[in-house]
């Protein structure tokens, strides 16, 4: 028995956007009866070239049906350029996560979207022409495996099978998959990371201040400067860090998001999980 989230169950039991759009602008078909799941996505654009209507037909398990329905909800109202950025991770996240063995259902959604957009643009379906078949049982190419590995930071052969199905049949391609993984993992191995500053227990105030300053200089300021902004440390009150944003940051509407999600995360990672960040207008 799979542990599906309530959202997966809801989208399976009462899926939205079943069927097909009349006179669709784009049609994407992926999967097959032999593979055990297949998805047909159709969409129609409005006058502003936004996706006005999207519908799906799916042959597959509960998570395949839920993923398809989630995909149609995700792309509605978006331009094709915006829709193109949607990946399998967005589909899985929309559903509150999928069991790891079912991640290929979300990949199926991403593939159908790419196929439908390519169809609208008069291009051949992206998946079929590319690369060399690695997994004969499910017809998965090396390019496809590589893309999914990079996109989802996969590190094991089992994960590749869960996400792409490759290697889930006769298993004779396991060595080839391992070789692709080895190559990508070697490429992506970054130069030795700066070891996280040791966190002595208990964290004295002095030590905490020093860590906050170091983290600000090493982790945060360079990133903000890259976007034309800057940051000043104003004060530290217990676990509360008061900062002021400068330059492009100070007038940026996304500043609050930047603060919460970026600065705070960095401090929590490198100093202490209790740190909260507040912006001071000076």
């Amino acid at each position: 028995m799979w542990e599906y989230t309530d959202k997966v169950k809801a989208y399976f039991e009462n899926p939205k956007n079943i069927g097909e759009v009349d006179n669709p602008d784009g049609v994407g078909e992926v999967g097959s009866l032999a593979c055990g799941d297949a998805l047909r996505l159709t969409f129609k654009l409005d006058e502003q070239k936004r996706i006005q209507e999207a519908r799906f037909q799916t042959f597959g398990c509960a998570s395949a049906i839920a993923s398809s329905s989630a995909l149609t909800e995700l792309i509605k109202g978006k331009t094709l350029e915006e829709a193109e950025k949607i990946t399998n991770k967005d589909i899985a996240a929309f559903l509150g996560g999928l069991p790891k063995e079912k991640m290929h259902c979300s990949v199926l959604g991403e593939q159908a979207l790419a196929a439908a957009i390519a169809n609208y643009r008069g291009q051949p379906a992206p998946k079929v022409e590319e690369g060399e078949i690695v997994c004969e049982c499910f017809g998965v190419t090396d390019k496809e495996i590589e893309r999914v590995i990079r996109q989802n930071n996969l590190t094991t052969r089992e994960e590749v099978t869960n996400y792409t199905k490759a290697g889930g049949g006769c298993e004779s391609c396991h060595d080839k998959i391992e070789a692709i993984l080895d190559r990508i993992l070697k490429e992506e191995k970054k130069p030795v990371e700066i070891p996280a500053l040791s966190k002595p227990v208990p964290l004295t105030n002095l030590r905490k201040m020093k860590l906050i300053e170091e983290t600000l200089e090493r982790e945060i300021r360079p990133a903000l400067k890259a976007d034309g902004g800057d940051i000043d440390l104003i004060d530290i009150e217990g676990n509360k860090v008061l900062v002021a944003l400068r330059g492009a940051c100070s007038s940026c509407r996304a500043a609050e998001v930047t603060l919460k999600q970026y600065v705070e995360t960095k401090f929590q990672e490198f100093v202490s999980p209790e740190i909260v960040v507040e912006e001071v207008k000076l």
Partner: protein
Amino acid sequence: MKVVYLDNNATTRTAPEVVEAMLPYFTNLYGNPSSMHSFGGQLARPVQQAREEVAALIKADEAEIVFTSCGTESDNAAIWGTLNSYPHKNHIITTRVEHPAIGNLATYLSKKGYKVTTLPVDREGRLDPDQLASTITEETALVSIMWANNETGVLFPIEEIARLVKAKGVVFHTDAVQAVGKLPIDLSRVPIDLLSFSGHKLHAPKGIGVLYIRKGTRFTPFIIGGHQERGRRGGTENVPYIIGLGKACELAGKNMTDENNRVRSLRDKLERGILDTIPKVLINGQQKERLGNTLSISFEYVEGESILMLLSNLGICASSGSACTSGSLEPSHVLRAMGVPFTAAHGSIRFSLSIYNTEEEIDYVLEHLPPIIHRLREISPFWKEGKGRISAGGQ
């Protein structure tokens, strides 16, 4: 919620009479039957009686019954126990449709250097006995062929096969986990050397199994330990479960007629009802020689897990040979071995009944199943009154 349990080939309800029989052996009667004091030693007698009940169900001698922990242990013990008794022979013969307890062990043995022949089955799930005969050689240590298939209920002609194998002087084992309690079995007439079965498929609890070893069969213990089970399986007797299995076997003998008449007619009603109300349906496995309680049926163009989930929401318990339900990515090895087309294999559902099912429950399923299939077909891109929109063999 109301539960309609139609997954009895997976496991069965422990009969209330069985539970009752077991209870004293969890409380006051906790001794060890091997003890010299009478507090423990008094348990040797009820264990012996249970052994006799078990033997009676398959018309064997009580000395031929070895209690194990489960069907899988019995299967492993049968195969290893034989191979280790014939170390100069390195060939075994089995089939492509065995339970993983045999199938995965056979794969393991082939990696270890044994020669393994896995016999194919035809579209109906049948074996060709002539083909079996032609594969037996001087090197063959063992032939292991299941009696009844757990997924389709198809019965192999075990009496004929056993005679054929014994005529060539080779040891014959059968995994009879799905057969014992459902079919009358008479080992005084059929020359089977080793036979496995499991308690929880016949209304005893999980955690008890049996390996029948015919007198005179060479056997090397698989679990080595104390003197229990006449030195054939070490380990203190699981007294409460042995008592439970004895009771379950006694009940199975009494219920055999009901099993083969009423349960069979309920299964037939379910099958007929589905065929009459739902188009594009296939029955998997030959219908003539088949367990009376089992129905494996495929709904084309829909996927099994989806069907099971919607049935489960209504309290109906069944199982599927679809890929998605198992965690593997391919549909059931049994259906693939039979060459069931992909349009159907992924949409296969197994209903397996027991004496506890009622006609009302079958009516409940027949009322709710057609709308479920209809609804999933409406979502399916392949369903257009049975004509695929996407070519079925596509990428």
